[in-house]
């Protein structure tokens, strides 16, 4: 049995130990927000938080996450209130097909916690810190605008 805590809820799953966290979330817990883009650590679509840090769920084994807190995009909003980044992505139209969006938002949410002085985040620094999240639709300018909006 693999014990996982996801978005504050505990689960016990009967998993092959080779199952990735991404497959456990999507196929066993029905949390399909995190996306499977490349499945090899190259695109960032599967980004979730583990103990508050952003990681790639496609390269993490579910069994290795026991005793840790996993948060997915489904757990980011506070009840009915969207997270400021979710609102900013809507307002700035920071997506086209939306496939990368959950990963972008989870990555950006962690980014804002990684810096001491958000206001000092330059555009170049946001770009570098978001470089692990690819967008095949090329929505980058609006993604940057959305993060910039939440920065201040």
């Amino acid at each position, binding site marked *: 049995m693999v014990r996982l805590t996801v978005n504050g809820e505990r689960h016990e799953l009967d998993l092959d130990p080779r199952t990735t966290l991404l497959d456990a979330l999507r196929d066993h817990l029905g949390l399909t927000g995190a996306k499977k883009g490349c499945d090899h650590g190259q695109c960032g679509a599967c980004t979730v938080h583990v103990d508050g840090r952003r990681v790639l769920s496609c390269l993490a084994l579910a069994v*290795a996450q026991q005793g840790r807190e996993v948060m997915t995009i489904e757990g980011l909003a506070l009840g009915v209130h969207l997270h400021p980044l979710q609102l900013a992505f809507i307002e700035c139209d920071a997506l086209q097909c939306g496939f990368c969006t959950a990963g972008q938002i989870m990555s950006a949410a962690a980014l804002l916690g990684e810096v001491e002085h958000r206001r000092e985040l330059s555009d170049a620094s946001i770009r570098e810190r978001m470089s692990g999240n690819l967008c095949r639709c090329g929505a980058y300018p609006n993604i940057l605008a959305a993060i910039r909006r939440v920065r201040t």
Partner: protein
Amino acid sequence: MRPFTYVEGVSVADAAAAVHATPAAMFLAGGTTVVDLMKLGVLAPDTLVDVHRLPLGDIELDDRRARIGACVRNAQLAEHPEIRARWPVVGEALQSGMSPQLRNMSTVAGNVLQRTRCPYYRDPHSACNKRVPGSGCAARTGWDRDAAVLGTSPRCIAVFPSDLATALAILDAIIYTRRGDGGARRLPFDGFHRLPGDTPERETILDHGELVTHFELPDLALARRSHYFKVRDRASYDFALAAAAVALDVERGLVRDARIALGGVATRPWRCSAAEQSLRGKRAEPAAFRAAADLALADAVAGAHNGFKIELARHVITRALTELAIRPG
């Protein structure tokens, strides 16, 4: 489905013994190499011994050295203020590689033990001596644009891709291990990675079941003035086409001592000792740096598509040293 066991290491000795006892067992740290290559069918361990909860996650510092636990996350090492001040090349090398997510997951030991990105190694249907000894080398006759120009052998021309390892190569780093039979070793970083030669499948001098426990960086005055410069196909989040780790000790415009290692162009971390020596007593200027770069690449051998790396690597060394020489402080 093939049987498979996941074991969480409870102690350093148990973890080493567990891998030692099972021929197809492997250590699992962050998993960013292991899980990736298991999915591709390149690695097929029947047992994974997870080391990430072992007490190897601390960075200890005193005047004489830094002692870095094998399971320290790469993000943690990259951001450590004192490491950044005393060994800046380490943080610069780490920041130039992977993505923030990958740096959060992956560990220092895993980084130094990562596998090549040679596309034929990653494709189980291709001939590859590193993956299946004796099967041939598809890269030699195929797409070798990313392959090495230094340290190659007729059997294998794959680049060893770690940025961190390139930095450690100029820092007199030492690796401490615990063996599966209970013994321990102290291994100089220089010589830890093997040349491919006739056995490209053997990448380091570690024995099966030998666990890396710590890295030591001795205090090194010239390391305070060190730098990493990397050229990639895109502006961020990519492996090196060519990279250089450099350090300089300059007095009144003259080089007293220098350190140079290349990444992205060689089959193992590549220290350029002759180039370093050529700089002693020279003026710290681009002309001398360029001459040293020529020496560093003197033995380079190009394949069909990677010849550009030789000139690129010369520029990378010259640029890295020039940037460092004009850096204030």
